[in-house]
């Protein structure tokens, strides 16, 4: 893995293409995070299985105890997360997990446990296809799919406005989503910090969900992979 990072960084230095810049940016962050994927997944399993509060022993796994039932979750995002009105909206896996962790574990900052749990869920879903809005063995709700389609369209416009000048969507989209293989960093956090122009897009915002709904829409049918899309893994080897 360390060698792979080094090669990825070299590739960045040689590349002059916009897509290469983004990919290189993804890989360059890896020094602090690389090699931590397995650790992150293990952390996530711990968060999933045990509540951090001694007086509130209900953990995620208490209710979601069927391993088969959660396998399809990672590939089903972004999707509409139903909540009390007016909060129902499209969310990424990380965003939905953070919302649930904040509520059920009563944590003020749910981001880090949510990152770990999302990694755990992504690892559980490896090999299943990416199907935004559609969860295996769950009904499909037309209203939710319409909301997701609207999210994709907002994401398309946002991408054109914020990202399109440097990165061709057709090149970037196949590399988007989930976690970055080399850095074990969720795409939402990377993109929040990647702001050559304009204000940041907060990792937990609807705008971020829209952006990733648009990008992941290009990857429908591909399998979920541990730690990121295949192209990123390929380059990092």
């Amino acid at each position: 893995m360390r060698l792979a990072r080094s090669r990825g960084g070299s590739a960045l230095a040689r590349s002059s293409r916009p897509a290469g810049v983004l990919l290189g940016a993804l890989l360059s962050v890896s020094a602090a995070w690389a090699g931590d994927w397995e650790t992150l997944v293990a952390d996530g399993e711990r968060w999933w299985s045990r509540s951090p509060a001694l007086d509130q022993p209900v953990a995620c796994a208490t209710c979601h105890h069927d391993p088969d039932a959660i396998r399809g979750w990672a590939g089903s995002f972004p999707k509409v997360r139903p909540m009390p009105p007016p909060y129902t909206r499209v969310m990424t896996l990380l965003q939905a997990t953070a919302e649930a962790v904040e509520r059920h574990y009563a944590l003020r900052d749910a981001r880090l446990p949510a990152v770990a749990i999302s990694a755990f869920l992504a690892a559980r879903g490896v090999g299943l296809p990416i199907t935004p809005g559609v969860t295996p063995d769950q009904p499909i709700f037309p209203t939710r799919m319409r909301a997701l389609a609207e999210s994709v369209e907002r994401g398309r416009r946002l991408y054109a406005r914020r990202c399109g000048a440097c990165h061709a969507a057709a090149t970037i989209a196949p590399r988007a989503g989930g976690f970055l293989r080399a850095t074990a960093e969720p795409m939402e956090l990377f993109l929040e910090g990647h702001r050559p122009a304009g204000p940041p897009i907060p990792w937990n915002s609807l705008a971020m969900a829209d952006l990733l709904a648009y990008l992941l829409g290009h990857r429908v049918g591909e399998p979920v992979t541990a730690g990121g899309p295949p192209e990123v893994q390929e380059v990092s080897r």
Partner: protein
Amino acid sequence: MRRRAWVVTVPIWIGLVAVPVVSDARSVITGTVRSQAGQPLAGLVLLEKGEIHNNVWHGGALVDATGRFRIELQAGGPYGVHVYASGYIYAPQAVRVESDKTLELSVTLVPEPTRANDPTIKRAGFFPWEARQGKVTFVKLDVGDPNDDLGPQVMAFNAATGQAYAMRPPRPVRDLKANFPQGVYQLEIDTSRAPANPRDWYFVVADHQCNTTDILSFPHEPKPPRVVQ
């Protein structure tokens, strides 16, 4: 001014709760409720009409001792199904019912590992409104919560009509994700045609973390909750 607002809002509220749930029903939700060990569980199923967690409560049914329930619907579409059994964490589930079809559900409930965090129902009562000559009865529920994170699910269910209600909190709460106040929740029911029969009424409360009270049935005398072994 305050009195005028009360006069206006009460008839609206009564009108809302007086609508019958079942007529010419064709779409059906039915199912079985069990523990993880496969034991059938008696309890309560309550429905939201539309998207789950929208707090638009519609109907429900009792779950019998064999774990079976059946709810006839006026129309197909999306519903939020919430299943409760005493001693178990309630289970929410979004479903889509096809028109003129029966949806069969299999629900497994998980016991609450502790009851220390559960909301508590301290008292329940039925109070005819004398000024309306008994045409309106207030159903009141005194609710507490050790974690102070009550949500909108302070629920009443009339088994005679199949209607479910989220009871009105002691003070208005606009944000459904906010922690709801502890205190006396209430519901105004139309008793112009027949008096309220307390035997028909069931109550259950779940907080934001899914800690759930026992189902309180007639004679509505709360008992200390116990952990299911």
